[in-house]
């Protein structure tokens, strides 16, 4: 095991909170669940300080549940209720909207582990969903239980836990369809061993899918009907997004042992520019041309982190002057027209804000030449 892993899984990072919540809410739990549904919702959304109703031998009397997922409460409620039902949960949305984070939190809260994950790629095969073989043992000793290498799905079925399938639409259609019978019959047949493995109570699937991308295969209609779809929208509110970017970039920089020192105004300008270009409408209501690239929150965090790192390690940089270059790099990925769109944004919204003498927009408007490259 590594000394200090770069990213800790949710069940380890928030182990104390999970323990507290298990003691806090002693209501009925769906079969196989570690927490009650209400407690799961509280865990995912966070932002409260709770007190235990009666003293518990291990858990502390009060605890602050940290904010994790920034979004609608109703969305989380629906996700939790779906997991308690017969269908799987499919989180869809644009890249960078924290779908994977939400699925990790949900699985950590419901079954105590987010490690049972299948990463979907174009090279994913049925073995990743069913089982594989240790060919050496198979050839040496023939088909036995020992030679079977269970997939995370099979492990989850046996244990009654939550299995996460990331980017399910990247798998080839015939591979995706392996899930169809699993979700309806909840049973896997292993003909080589002559057995049928049924799933234990509490087995469910959380999948994520990214709809707006290349290299994505469509899900079959039969598979779609085994899932409840929840669209995870980008963050609706400017303040929350600024807050989130600051927090996450700060966390990333603290791993380098530094403080997050990007100027607040520049950070706001960065997030505002991202929101304007993402939504096609400026905060003030003017229309803005949307570039073809997705301007996600995760990307904004990345840019903020880079700006912070540049300030830290290369020192003495003017952050405002960095911003146009970073924006151009983010926007101009596939379509050459996107540079024109960014220029158009500069000519309309940024210019108007500069005319209204708002800092740092005035300076940014002067730096237009950096975009023309």
């Amino acid at each position: 095991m590594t000394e200090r892993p770069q990213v800790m899984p949710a069940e380890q990072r928030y182990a104390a909170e999970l323990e507290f919540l298990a003691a806090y809410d002693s209501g009925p739990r769906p079969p196989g669940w570690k927490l009650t549904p209400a407690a799961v919702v509280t865990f995912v959304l966070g932002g409260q300080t709770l007190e235990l109703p009666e003293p518990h031998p291990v858990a502390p009397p009060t605890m602050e549940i940290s904010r994790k997922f920034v979004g609608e409460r109703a969305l989380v409620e629906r996700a939790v209720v779906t997991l308690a039902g017969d269908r799987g949960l499919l989180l869809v949305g644009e890249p960078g909207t924290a779908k994977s984070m939400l699925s990790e939190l949900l699985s950590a809260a419901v079954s105590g582990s987010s490690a049972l994950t299948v990463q979907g790629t174009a090279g994913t095969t049925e073995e990743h969903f069913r089982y594989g073989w240790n060919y050496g043992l198979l050839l040496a000793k023939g088909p036995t239980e020992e030679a079977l290498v269970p997939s995370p799905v099979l492990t989850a079925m046996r244990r009654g836990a939550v299995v996460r399938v990331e980017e399910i639409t990247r798998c080839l259609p015939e591979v995706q369809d392996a899930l169809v019978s699993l979700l309806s019959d909840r049973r896997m047949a292993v003909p080589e061993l002559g057995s049928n493995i049924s799933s234990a109570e509490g087995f469910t699937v959380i999948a994520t899918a990214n709809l707006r991308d290349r290299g994505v295969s469509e899900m079959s209609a039969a598979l779609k009907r085994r899932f409840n779809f929840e669209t995870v929208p980008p963050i609706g509110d400017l303040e929350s997004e600024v807050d989130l970017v600051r927090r996450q970039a700060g966390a990333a920089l603290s791993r380098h042992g530094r403080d997050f020192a990007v100027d607040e105004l520049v950070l706001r300008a960065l997030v505002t520019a991202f929101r304007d270009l993402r939504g096609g409408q400026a905060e003030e209501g003017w229309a803005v041309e949307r570039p073809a690239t997705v301007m996600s929150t995760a990307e904004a965090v990345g840019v903020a982190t880079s700006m912070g790192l540049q300030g830290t390690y290369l020192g003495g940089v003017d952050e405002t002057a960095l911003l146009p270059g970073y924006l151009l790099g983010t926007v101009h990925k596939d379509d050459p027209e996107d540079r024109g769109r960014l220029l158009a944004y500069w000519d309309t919204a940024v210019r108007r804000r500069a005319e209204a003498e708002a800092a740092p927009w005035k300076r940014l408007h002067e730096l237009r030449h950096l975009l023309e490259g």
Partner: protein
Amino acid sequence: MSETDPASLVDALHSSKSPHLIGVRHHSPALAAAMPDLLAAAEPDAVCVELPQELGEWTRWLAHPGTLAPVACSVIDATGERLGFYPFADFSPELAALRWARENDVPVYAIDLPSGHPRGSEFREHDPLSAAFGRAAGVDDTEELWDRLVESRSYGADPQALRRAALAVGVAMRGEAGPSEADALREAWMRKEIAATGASRPVAVIGSFHAAALIGDHTEPDLSGPVAPVTCAVVPYTFALLDSRSGYPAGIRDPEWQQAVWESKGEATAVERHATRVITEVCGKMRAAGHAAGTPDALAGHSLAMGLSALRGLTAPGRREVIEALGSVLGQGDQLGRAAAVARACEAVLVGDRRGELPPDAPRAGLLSHVEQACDELKIPRDGRAKQLKLAPHRSPLDRKRHALLTRTRVCGVPFGKRRELAGIGDQDSLGREWTVKWEPRTAATLDWLSTYGPTLAHAATGLLRQRWIDPEATTAHRLGFFEAAVEADLPGLLAEFTARMREDVVATAGLPELLTAYHLLGRAGTDPVLRAEVAAAAINAVGGLAGSGEAADIRALAELVRLSRAEHEHLGAERLVWQLARLTEDASPPTRGAAAAALTLLDRRPHQWLGELAASWAEDADGERAAGALRGALLVAGDLWDADPDLWEPLARRLESWPERDFWPRLPALREGFDALSTAARERLFRTVSGRYGDDTALGRLEVAPELLAAWAAADEAGRIAAAGGEDTGDDLAPESPVDGAETVDRWRLILGRESDRLSASYRRGALALDDLYGSGHGEGSMGIGAVGGTSGGVGAAEPSIREWAEDLAELFGSRVREEVLARAAGRGRLDAILQLDPGHVTPSVDLLTRVLGLAGAMPESKLAPLRRLAARLVEELTKALATKMRPALTGLTTARPTRRHTGRLDLARTVRANLHTVQDGTTLVPERLVFRSRGARSADWDVHILVDVSGSMERSTVYSALVAAVLHGVPALSVHLTTFSTDVVDLTEHVSDPLSLLMEVSIGGGTDIGKGLRYVRDRIKVPSRTILAVVSDFEEGASVSRMLEEFRQLATGGTHVLGLAALDDKGEPVYNKAIAGRIADAGVPVAALSPSQLADWIAAKVRA
């Protein structure tokens, strides 16, 4: 009052006896169901309701047993302004109170401030409870708050506890701030009125926001004031209008749901049953719309709704839980397709279509009398005879009012006035309006029926237009029509609404001509300059979609846009326009390139000299079509500049001077064609300017002198010049050594501009005659009269040459290649027999020629069709051969299987063994670490290729190419090809695929564009979606519903079909398309591109092999 803590205030309100307080929200099923119990418990001797005093006598009609809810009361003043509007349904607590009072013989009093009071009309339709919610809670969705705090906890609750909860909500929302000045006035009036009833146990049924004002001591403001007379009416209403999304005031969401909750009278199990029924009905509606939604989906929806209500601590699922459950279970994350269908189904089931009725003896509604009165005032005749009215709305206010009234009746569909369109000059709107009015019995009947939509014509027209705009099936063209109607009918409130919605409803899907229309309409309406600027920006954006166009209409739209940019928005958007134009000058069809270059000059981004040089370089182009096209484009946009600035025509003049005969003659037809874009008067002006440069003596034409003499004179002149300059040859720079002298250059200009053919020298006159035959006297300004072209023959000289002679002339003068061009152009201009002169054996096959030939096919009489067919057959054959050669490399080898690592189930044993030999240890055991499989080789005719072609425009190159490509693909064994054309009708031409000529002959051009219909047709014919390729060749100017088209695309894409949108299918790759709509199609998951046939073949092959 602010010192009292809220809890004790609520207690005080709850226990108050005189008056006994029942605080309500104006539509609340819980309170309406509990109202009879509450009133029975209170045993009142007077029931006071929060309605304006003038409506007091109408309450008996509301409570009448023959009245079926929903109904509405409206109050208007003398000028027709609406002072108040009060809809009622079964689930309105006030209506429940009125009914109880009637049954139990308790007198009813309307205690609110009279609408005719000077302060009576403020904030009337604005429910103060909602406003307070908004202020206090910082939440927009105020209805949801009441739903959560009162409605959803009401099942099985004790009525008194419910009453207390409602009063508590009112207190909380009233909060610290207290009422506004207008509300304080109303509350004071209510207090006065309750006291004035003289009842000992009055009950007050009022909005719970106001409850706190009716107990305790208050300062009494001055309530005096003249009460103006008002007109009241009770009209039947509908749930569709009661729904708060209809735009009518004081509505509530999903009336049918509220009705069902009311009917369950507070029982949780009844509400749950109803929720189940709603979910099942929505699934049924989805099935009817063609989406898969069966019983398991309904079950999943039910369990999600019940789970949500349990999690949220409710005893029965509420409206919100049901809608969220349906969205998650049926929506499949698909905003454009299924989710929209789910929303529509929910709306149909939850809003419902109930319509109210009034008892037969109730007084009739006011709309009819209002219109009669208005007509009499404005002197519009109502005597049953037809009368013509000529109106000048711009000059006379009376005429403007009349025009507004008549437009409003027309918009409402009332058969009263018919308008005759007066065409204006050029692009201007006509200033006058002519109407024919006739009042018929039908008129009165329709007005009566329309009273549901409003008490006055303005309200009715507003309501109807708004409904039509909101309808998702409305197209951009329709909406612009509604906007214009709103301008004409003088409805400022509606205009403001439309302007607010213009962005998402119109700008998002309009093409360039529509955007320009919108721009002009916004100017006429005089609203919102910011929006106008945005429309201009969107128009600039749409310019990119014109790249492949050659149509004069598109070029003119571009010219209009440039004119607007110069005149009005010099700073905003000009950069972007310039950027677009710069790209178009490099990469577009010749007319667009020329137009873009001229536009750049007009915008002062390039000097005139640049354009002049460019024009000269186009003239030098050997390809006549390109030269002609580019010149046409430039002249259509900037034609007026040419005679004004010598920088523009001097480079061309220099070229003309420098060309020897053999260079000039082949280029002449193209130049003539290009300059024909100018009107006759413009050409005349240009000719005058140009010829002036060469001096007057050239007007005499050349002298007929013997060549030897000319040579001797020239030599003498030359010797003299050298001697005069002192033996040095200075070499004059300004007059370059030209093989052509000034007089001949003027002649050449005469030929190019088609002027003064009678002054031409003999050798040129033949050429002039040949071309004048084609171009006639020109078009536009000056074509009738200024300087007859073609000489003063008047009976002398040969008759008009026959077409054969003409063709021979052309061959002699210009060469055979140019002859083909000119003949094709002649055919395009209507000289149909010209095309027959082309010899199939020697013609150069080109798609342009084929396009022209086929375009003529419809116009030809039967007898002439045979040679045309031969010509077309030859062209098709040659072109298909050329195309097949280009496409074949991509399509070979589709049927063979290739090795791959992907698990396809067919092990390629040899390759596997070879790949894993390194694992062999003891000689017999091989561990298959890496497996190699065989990909699925396509069996013959395994894949279906559907080509869907848009034939609503002219016969495009893309259409011809589609037919040729279909023919080539037909020859590939792995593919089976289907070709379908659509405009507003869908025609399946699959049986002609093997013979592209007959296919092209069958194609009928023209009509509107209904892409959704074409897609639906193809979708029904798809057998195996994952082995089907669909290429849609269109310009995506959807003429029917855009949302339906997007839904179809989405359905096809999600079904697994490989769909591709082709904005152009030809080897030049210059698309003409609506960029906004194409962007939305791309967002729906269908790529849109402009491909050449070989690129398309590559794409198809890649899909098949994968």
